[in-house]
């Protein structure tokens, strides 16, 4: 009997000793790369509708066609409304440009500005891979999945810290909290409506956002026709910004 109890205590000790290691053995950065891979194919095109909703219920919509390649190259062109049509954006790493047909030349913009207004800023609209911008400093497991605590690799990012709540089976986020360097919560992103876009692309089709800085305002991004596509690197250059619509 004594031997059995001792064996049980020893077994419990071993389990307790190694169970935290099991959690910390998870490589957060590797998981983050898998999340990126699930959200975005290596090289693809997509359509997105951005909807800004004001507290009084009025809304404004923008439709963009975007192409993304690798971890940190994304280019987009506005298809509607008429007042925005032809505007295009380009992001290579932390470099962002806006091309306005009237102005006729690309202008550098920053991640904190917003080409559409509303809660989404340029960093949200021209999102590159999270693993390109952030390191995972800590990972927690909960009964709902993983929580990744991300810290910016460089200073030139919109959010210093990001907390990503993941579905541990699908390795897709269902909520992301974005924080400033001061620790202030800037916005929440909610990932909804997981959809099969074909060719193995299964990802949330809707991102909803709210922000304590914009009380009563909400913004949505609705994804459509997300599909893999071979893209030349030359597409992601200033000289090509006025020709992105031609890729459709």
């Amino acid at each position, binding site marked *: 009997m004594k031997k059995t109890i001792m064996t049980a205590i020893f077994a419990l000790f071993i389990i307790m000793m190694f169970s935290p290691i099991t959690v910390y053995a998870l490589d957060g950065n590797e998981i983050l790369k898998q999340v990126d891979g699930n959200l975005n194919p290596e090289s693809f095109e997509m*359509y997105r*509708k951005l*909807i*800004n*909703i*004001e507290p*009084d*219920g*009025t*809304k*404004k919509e923008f*439709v963009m*066609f975007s192409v993304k390649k690798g971890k940190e190259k994304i280019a987009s062109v506005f*298809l*509607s*409304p*008429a*007042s925005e*049509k*032809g505007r295009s954006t380009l992001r*290579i*790493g*932390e*470099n962002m440009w806006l091309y*306005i047909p*009237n*102005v*006729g*030349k690309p*202008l*550098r913009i*920053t*991640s*904190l*500005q*917003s080409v559409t*207004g509303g809660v989404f800023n340029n960093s949200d609209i021209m999102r590159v891979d999270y693993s390109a911008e952030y390191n995972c400093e800590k990972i927690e497991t909960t009964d709902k999945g993983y929580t990744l605590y991300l810290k910016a690799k460089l*200073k*030139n*990012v919109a959010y210093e810290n990001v907390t990503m709540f993941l579905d541990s089976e699908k390795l897709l986020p269902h909520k992301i909290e974005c924080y400033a360097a001061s620790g202030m919560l800037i916005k929440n992103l909610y990932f909804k*409506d997981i959809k099969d876009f074909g060719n193995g692309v299964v990802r949330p*089709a*809707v991102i909803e956002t709210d922000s304590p800085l914009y*009380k009563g*305002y909400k913004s*949505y991004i*609705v994804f*459509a*026709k997300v599909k893999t596509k071979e893209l*030349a*690197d*030359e*597409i*992601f*250059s*200033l*000289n*090509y910004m006025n*020709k992105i619509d*031609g890729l459709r």
Partner: protein
Amino acid sequence: MKQAFIIIAACFITLLFNSAAFSEKIDLDLDFEIEEVTKKPYSINADIEVKETIKFFDSDALLFKQKYLNTKKDNTFWQTDFDFTIEGQYQWNTITLYGRFNSLIYYNEDVDWESERKVEEAYITFQPSVSWAVDAGKKVHKWGKGYAFSPSAFFSRPKNIDDPDATLEGYYSLSTDYIKSMEGILQTIAVTPVFMPVNRDINHEIGPKNELIWGGKIYFFAFDTDIDFMFLISDNMDNRIGMDFSKNLSPSFEIHGDAALVQDYHQYIIDEYGNTSEQEYTAFNLLLGLRYLSSQDTTYILEYYRNGQGYSGQEYENYLAFIERGYDQYLNTSSKAAISKSKTYAAYYNQQAVMRDYLYLKVSQKDPFDILYFVPAITFIYNLDDKSVSITPQVTYSPLTNLTLDLKTGFLLRKSKTEYGEKINNAKILLSIKYYF
């Protein structure tokens, strides 16, 4: 045209305060098809703008006296504009046709009803691959990184400093774009040669003699920095070389600059007695600027502009002194000879930013008071040579999709014998309603 102003102002105020009545209300069903996914080979867009401008003339200003002598009794100038722009595009395989046409009908007391029509751009693009594109036709080539000033924009018309974002009219040209991307420090290189013929049928506003102006631009993206080198070669115009750069130092801080050398630039000078002369020199133009976005969403654009082709403070003051002398001569003898002579030099002296050193500052605030798509701004242009100042407060509001309301005012801080001190008007108000469809 006070009636027109009242009507436009009434529409402006109605749209400003009752936009909710016209706006699209929330009906949020996120499971929908995006209709723009289906691409048509053609697209057509247009916008119409109704604009009322009120200028408050300064009858003591020398440029007012030069233009009107003492014939104008009413010091308030009203102009109503109806501006219509339509653009269309048609794509067929590797060929794209693009055109943008503008029609302006306006009324003021000086000219009564007038109209202007112009083809702003009309060109064909042949793009056999993403790396290669050839454009032929009337096209705007906007080079340079400056916001208000562009010393290195060799193949385009000058910007309107009062509205740097305004659409420009292009020139007829043949140009090519070659883009090459690569791994490493140098990520992109792009080469853009441009050929611009000048004869009596096309581009004749550039010069009276037939010739082929040519030049080019080479772009590098390296070290997270945009760098361009450009040149222009001409038999009759001044040859030019230049460069520009821009770089983000942080997510909220960007710096940029343009520099250009204009070889054998001819400057035409008139002194206070009406004696004329010419000087030829190599002019150096420089622009250094920054763009900063504060945590409160306030954007600051600050630029220093050195206009090497401009006049010194003394040279410009001499021109104004000659106008004053000519006006006095007219009052004393009814002779318009001197004032008419001064007008022949107006093409050189009465331009925007005609002197040598300027500071430009634009401060704009996005969505203040939680009002989305509402942007108040104020612009200062400070002439460092004569210390005169132009101040332009402005509010832009887009209460509805495709609708923009713009209220702009302008004030000139007055000082005798200075650029902004002697402009025709000392204040102006501009009210505009623009609709895109």
